[in-house]
Structures are given as structure tokens and as C-alpha cells.
């Protein structure tokens, strides 16, 4: 519990109405978008400037109070659940776009700006910020940077890490650092910018960011290709890439997802196909047209049973609906929806989907898979009920095996959601004991007293690696 003296110190920094410890506020900041994770903070603090953040951190450091930095609370790894109590530092009031620099092609933003607002602001000037995580209508850029968010455009354009050029951040000792800058080249010392991207609020509090922009593609087109066999869909993906085409979008839905989407939306998807690919290209009109033709030919060659190329914006919208509705359709099935993000090299998608299917059947669960086929980032999504403890236990075991399968195929336990609380027990599977040690060393260098987002990234105990004999 925080003493009254500490509370009034915090109040003095941000003002009475931006320092809340009434019950309502504590409950409202006790969760994020992660199922089954909740813990009450002691106080919610809402600063508006870097100086205020600095002063709050100084108070926390002096009294050894944990700080959990929060944007929109839309993450799926429990990253902003205050498991150790303390301060939830919510940055929604730091929501200004500081500058769009058309000479250097950069945008400078405060952490509380919504991702979608960045898109709109730069696209109005013919510029483009490609990372488009599924939650971009609510997520803040600070959260995207802290979790190195991905999205649908990862294959062609990369993820958040590829667009962060510089950061301002408050260290756990209250010092402010500035890393990088409006620079495409900068090798002065360790790359602290990249280190902070994806550090999940465990190393420093990001208070400003310089992001790289690129020219906005002039044309976009999309198509659907449907397959009777998952293998053929996977081969189409590999063939497209092997033919030196990098599509702007390359998404896939498995049969379970297709059935649920069709049931929910009735958009005329054939429910007897094993997989649907949603393929999009963007760029100059003639190049896009040429690529779309070549992609269609490749899908044809791989026995696609049906190919639907959108020729009008309305048709494109229809085609996109299938993928966009996936989460909504799945989440209506049961009360609890667990959306995972096991990721494999793209050539391993077919075996990974088969492994997920086999595990799902063996545990008697309902898991559908959709995701970013182009970059191997899959979203096996489990429809369950958090109140059914026996079932939840099976879900946990199934996901353990799914993570293990991903690693066996050269993949990772999380492609874009982050480690947070929920993946912490499995981190060692991916990075090894030595990897964990060096990461802990980095954490100690930044935050020796473990004040920033404690309980995340590093589990008290790693899970024993499951060994499964797959015949």
C-alpha cells in the first residue's frame, strides 16, 4: 500500500484529477485485452509531459514503487496488467503529433497518439506508415513500440521496429535519454533504439518517438484464392515468393475459420474448401496489375478451386470482409477467445497448420487458425470459457504443444503479441538459458531495482519443455 504522503507527492506532480485511487479507477486499469489476467494497481497516474513522467519516476524510485506504463490496454500478453500493484502510468494525455517532416520523411509523435491517427495524418500528405496491427483503431504508438507490433503488411513492409528511428525515454532512475534521430544511418554505440522497441515497458518509459515514413503506394488490389487442400495453399505462398513477388498482403484462413465466418456473415464463401488465401498488392498501377496476373496464374497452377480478383473497390471490400470478420466471427462462438500468435518460417506453414489441427483434435478443443501466411505468423484462436477450469487446463496444455511445435519447425512462441505474463514461462524455450541470462543482465543494467513492469518477460520459473512424440 502507498502511504498518503506518497499519494500527495504524486498528486502534486500531475494534479488532483490526474492521480486517481478511487475504486472505479483501480478496477478500470486492472486489465488489458488479455483473457483471464487482472490485478489492481494502487494508483493511476496520468502525466501530460516528459517532465511529469520524470518526476513520477523519481518518486517511484525513491519509494521503490513499481510502474506499469500503459497506452490503450489493447495488448494480448498481459503486458499492462499491474501484477505487482503500484502505479499504472497511463500516457493517453500525451497524444500530440509533434511534427511531420516532409524533407526527412519522418513523423515525431508523443506515445499516446493512436496508430490510426498517424495513418490518417500522414496519408493525407501522400505518405505512408505501414505497420497496421489489428488493434490499430485503439492502440497507441507507444504501445506499438513497446511491443514491436506487427500487422497485415509485415511481409512486404516489415513491422514497427523497421520504422522507429529515434526515441526519447525516461530511465528508471529518472534520467531522460534520446536515442537515434532523423537518421537512416547511425552507428554511434549500441543501438538503444532497437533495444527499447519491443522491451515491453521493462527498460524505460518511451515519451516521444521519431518514425520513418515512405511514399504512399498509389494503387491497391486484392484477390481471394480457395483451395481444397492446405498443402496447395502453402505451396502457392512459397511459389509466389520464389517468383520474386512480395505481396503487400498475404493472409490465410483455415477451414474452421471459413465456416465460422460464413456462418456469421453469409458472404458466399465455400465452406467445403480447406483454406483461403487473401492476396493483395500495392504500388504503381501497372506493376500491381502485372503482379496480380502472375499471382493468379501461380494459384491456378497450384490447383486453386476458385480465384476471385476484385475489380472494383466494392469487390475489394467484399474480399477483405472475409479476413476482417475472422476475429469477430470466432469471438461470438464462446465467451472466452484466446488469440495466439505462434510463428514459423513461411515454408513451414503447412506442417504447422497440420500440427495445430492434430493437437486441437487430440485435446478435444475448438481452435481455428487464420493469420499472416506471408510471414508465417499464425493466429491459432481458441474458443473456450474461462469459467470451465477443466477445459482451460486442456487449452493450456494444447497451446504449450503448439508453441513447442512452432519451435521445432524453426519458429517462435510469439510473432507479434509479446511475452508479457502469458508467454514468460515459455521464453526460455525460444531463447535458451543463456539468452535469458543476457536479457536479465540488460534488464539489470537499466532497472536494477526491478521497478518497471515487474513480473513481465521473465517468469519465476520456466515451464519444462514438453516432449511430444509425433509419429
Amino acid at each position, binding site marked *: 500500500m502507498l502511504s498518503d504522503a506518497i499519494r500527495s507527492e504524486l498528486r502534486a506532480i500531475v494534479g488532483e484529477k490526474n492521480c486517481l485511487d478511487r475504486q472505479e479507477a483501480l*478496477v*478500470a486499469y486492472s486489465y488489458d*485485452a*488479455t483473457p483471464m489476467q487482472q490485478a489492481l494497481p494502487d494508483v493511476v497516474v496520468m502525466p501530460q509531459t516528459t517532465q511529469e513522467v520524470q518526476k513520477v519516476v523519481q518518486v517511484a524510485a525513491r519509494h521503490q514503487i513499481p510502474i506499469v506504463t500503459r497506452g490503450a490496454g489493447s495488448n494480448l500478453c498481459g503486458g499492462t496488467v499491474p501484477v505487482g500493484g503500484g502505479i499504472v502510468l*497511463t500516457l493517453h494525455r500525451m497524444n500530440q503529433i509533434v511534427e511531420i517532416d516532409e524533407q526527412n520523411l519522418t513523423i515525431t509523435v508523443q506515445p499516446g497518439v493512436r496508430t490510426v491517427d498517424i495513418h490518417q495524418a500522414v496519408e493525407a500528405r501522400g505518405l505512408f506508415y505501414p505497420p497496421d496491427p489489428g*488493434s490499430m483503431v485503439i492502440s497507441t504508438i507507444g504501445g506499438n513500440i513497446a511491443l514491436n507490433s506487427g500487422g497485415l503488411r509485415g511481409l512486404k513492409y516489415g513491422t514497427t521496429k523497421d520504422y522507429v528511428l529515434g526515441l526519447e525515454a525516461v530511465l528508471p532512475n529518472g534520467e531522460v535519454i534520446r536515442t537515434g534521430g532523423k537518421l537512416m544511418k547511425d552507428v554511434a554505440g549500441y543501438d538503444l533504439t532497437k533495444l527499447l522497441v519491443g522491451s515491453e515497458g521493462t527498460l524505460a518509459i518511451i515519451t516521444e518517438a521519431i518514425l520513418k515514413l515512405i511514399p504512399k503506394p498509389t494503387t491497391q488490389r486484392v484477390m481471394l484464392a480457395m483451395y481444397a487442400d492446405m498443402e496447395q495453399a502453402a505451396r502457392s505462398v512459397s511459389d509466389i515468393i520464389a517468383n520474386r513477388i512480395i505481396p503487400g498482403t498475404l493472409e490465410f484462413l483455415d477451414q474452421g475459420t471459413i465456416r465460422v465466418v460464413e456462418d456469421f456473415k453469409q458472404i458466399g464463401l465455400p465452406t467445403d474448401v480447406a483454406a483461403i488465401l487473401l492476396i493483395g498488392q500495392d504500388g504503381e498501377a501497372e506493376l500491381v496489375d502485372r503482379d496480380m496476373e502472375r499471382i493468379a496464374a501461380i494459384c491456378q497452377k497450384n490447383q486453386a478451386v476458385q480465384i476471385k480478383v476484385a475489380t472494383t473497390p466494392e469487390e475489394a471490400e467484399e474480399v477483405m470482409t472475409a479476413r476482417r470478420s475472422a476475429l469477430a466471427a470466432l*469471438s461470438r462462438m464462446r*465467451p472466452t477467445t484466446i488469440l495466439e500468435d505462434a510463428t514459423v518460417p513461411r515454408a513451414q506453414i503447412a506442417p504447422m497448420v497440420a500440427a495445430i489441427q492434430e493437437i486441437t483434435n487430440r485435446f478435444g478443443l475448438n481452435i481455428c487458425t487464420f493469420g499472416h501466411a506471408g510471414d508465417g505468423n499464425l493466429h491459432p484462436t481458441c474458443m473456450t470459457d474461462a*469459467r470451465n477450469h477443466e477445459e482451460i487446463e486442456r487449452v493450456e496444455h494444447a497451446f504449450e504443444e503448439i508453441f513447442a511445435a512452432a519451435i521445432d519447425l524453426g519458429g517462435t512462441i510469439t510473432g507479434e503479441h509479446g511475452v508479457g505474463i502469458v508467454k514468460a514461462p515459455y521464453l526460455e524455450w525460444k531463447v535458451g538459458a543463456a539468452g535469458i541470462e543476457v536479457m536479465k543482465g540488460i534488464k539489470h543494467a537499466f532497472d536494477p531495482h526491478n521497478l518497471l513492469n515487474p513480473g513481465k518477460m521473465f517468469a519465476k520459473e520456466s515451464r519444462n519443455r514438453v516432449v511430444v512424440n509425433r509419429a
Partner: protein
Amino acid sequence: MLKEALQQKLDYEELANCMRCGFCQPACPTFRETGYEAASPRGRIALMKAVADGVMEPDKDFVDQMNLCLGCRACEPVCPAGVPYGQLIEQTREAIEQEQDHPWYIRMARKTAFTHLFPHQRRLNRLGGLLGFYQRSGLQTAVRKLGVLNILPKQLKEMEAIMPDASSKGLSERMGATVIPAVGESKQRVGMFHGCIMDVLFQETNVNTVRLLAEAGYEVVIAPGQVCCGALHAHSGEREAARSLARKNIEAFQQAKVDLIISNAGGCGALLQEYDHLLHDDPDWHEQAKWFASRVKDVSEVLAPSVEPEAWDELPQRVTYQSSCHLRNGMKVTKEPVSLLQSIPGATYVALREGDRCCGSAGIYNLVQPEMSGNLLNEKMEHVKATQADILVTSNPGCLLQMKAGIKRAGLEDRMEAVHLVDLLARVSNQSEMSSK
């Protein structure tokens, strides 16, 4: 105890269906104003669930937060999991109301309005007569001159200023019949739901609705015995009263043997369409409530495919549309009002930026939450101004009053008017009272 009342009334299954993705937040007006998690649908559901789980006491902050919700339901269409937030907030308000200890004057005002006034159309019309007397006898002018109104809060004063002329007669009395035959062969027999406030303050709109429907080939029955829909009751936590009104309406329209039930107020229509849910635990009425709910349509849904705009007058003006929240989010009617406006010859339809966002009227919200409502209205009027429209169209009486007040507040009275969709259609198709005289 409020806690027990909430635990008993809240639908726990639906609370559990919220997966906390937060996709509701950009749609929520109070979240956008405050940025405060608790003032969002996800936050409010988390608070309800915390109370239901016994983790939190429903204290004053809890009650205030629930009252700050407009009930616009803009969160519902964007919810991936399909959580019926509108029902959850009403269940919460019902529990709060049941346990609330209002001061005597609020108790009296609520009792007067909810028990003695709204359920009785005759009394409302009589009150309308008094209001009409006030407006037309010179008393209104005198009262305004004397500055008596200065004792009223700003919002009430604004409302007094834009109050339309009230009517003391009922709709069928005014039309001279309860059944109005279709022009030409009748497509269907439709029941006109005239509403309570609508029939006193906006009877013109009701008359126009009946005429447009008849002209479009529908036989219209002004079902006798119909009463207030109960929306104001339900939104204010008086669900039991709403249920009793629902039963009366179901009976009235079943006796009238109608194929469809037509509403011209989004706020009423949305509740009428949910009578099946309202009466879901009443075994004697549930089936009949389903019969009723499945027949409810907004007037625009029926008119859009049946009107003949070729015969309409030219309207060389700019027209914009502020949607009624419950028409859009409750009844899910979005395209028809716009397509009707776009079909008016000579008119230029300009989309209103954020025309899908609540105007801040929200039943009696503008009177009980003047600050939030005022902020929303000011933002709304900025967007309205930018359209440079001559006519601002809405589809619900509360929104219409709020838009009229907004136009006055923004000083736009000289170049813009707020009109109900039906009245504009009546104007261009020569069906309105004014043009037929």
C-alpha cells in the same frame, strides 16, 4: 442493497462475453471526451463485472459513471463479440433506480412523468393543450420578456426557446379516422406507432408519416389503445413500467391486425424492436412480444423502396443528415434515410462528418448531464457548420430538438433549419399540411 440488486439483474453471461479488446472505445462519445478507461463501454462492463463478482462495491463513483453513459449504443455495431451493451446498461440502471434514494422533489417529478404522464396519452395531449395555450396566448412572450426563465438552467432555457407548437388532439382525431386507406392498391396494412411526445410536440410529423405511407401504397391503421413505447422508462431504470407499456402496445397492434408496425422515431423504434427481450421472462407475453418485435420498421425502411421521387418538387438546397443513435445502433437502419435524401431532385446531399456520433440529446441526458451534453453538441455543430447545409435532417424527436437548440446556440438560425426526414419528404412530395392547404 445495490450490490445484490445488480448481481440479481445483470446478465452475467453477457458480461463474460466481453473479451476486453477495446474496439468499442473509439465509438464511445464519453471515452473520446475524457480518454478515461472507466468512461468507456469496456470500462463500464468491467465495473459491472467487478460488482457482479463481488470484487467492488457499487459506490457513488460507480453510479456516476453509469449515469455518464449516453446510452447511444454506438459501441454495439463495432463489438466483435456482439455484446448487447444497451441491455447491460439498462439492467444496471434498473438496479440503481430500484435502490436509489432520490430527494422528494426528484421522486415526485419522476413519479409524475413516468407513472402519471407518459403512460397516459390523453393527459399528455391535455398538457400539450396547456403548452399550446402558453405558446399562443402571448404568455410565452410575456414570460420571456419578464426574464422569468432566467431561473432555469441554461440547457432547459435553450429547450424552452426551441419548443415546437404543441398539439392537444390525438393523431386519429386530427386525421379524422383510425384507418387511412392506401392510395391505389394496398401493399400491406401497417400500424402507425405515434409515440407520446411525438404526438404532442411533433404531430405534424406523424400526420406527414401517415400521408406518405398511404401515398406509397400502404393502408395505415392508427391502432387505438397504443401508449408510450417505454423507452424513457427503460433508459431511466423503470423497466417494470416499460414492460407494462409494452404489453398494452402489443395488445393494441395485435387487435389492429397489422403486417408491420411503423415508427418514425429511432428512440421508440429501437425499444419496440426489443420488446421480445424486454418481456423474455414473461411466459404469458413472450411469444406475442416476438410477433410484435419482428414487425417493427422505421418509416424510412418502408418508404425507401416505394417512393417515386420523379414526381417530387425540386429542392435546390444542401441537405445533411444527423443519424439517430438508436435508429442506427439499435434498429441498424443506416442506408435508407440517406438514399431517400439523395433521391430528392435538385438537392445536394453532403455527408456530415461524424454524423454517426451522438448529438448529446440522448433522451433526458441533455438535462441531467448538461456539461458532457454541451461539449458533444458544440463539437457536433462545428461539423454541421462545415457542411454549409441549408437543411439538417434527423430521424428522432429528441435529436431534432437538440439540433434546433444547437443551431440556435451556434447562431445559424438565419441560414439553417433542422427538419425531421419525414417532414422534408412531405414537403417535396406535396404531402405536408402546409402544401395541401
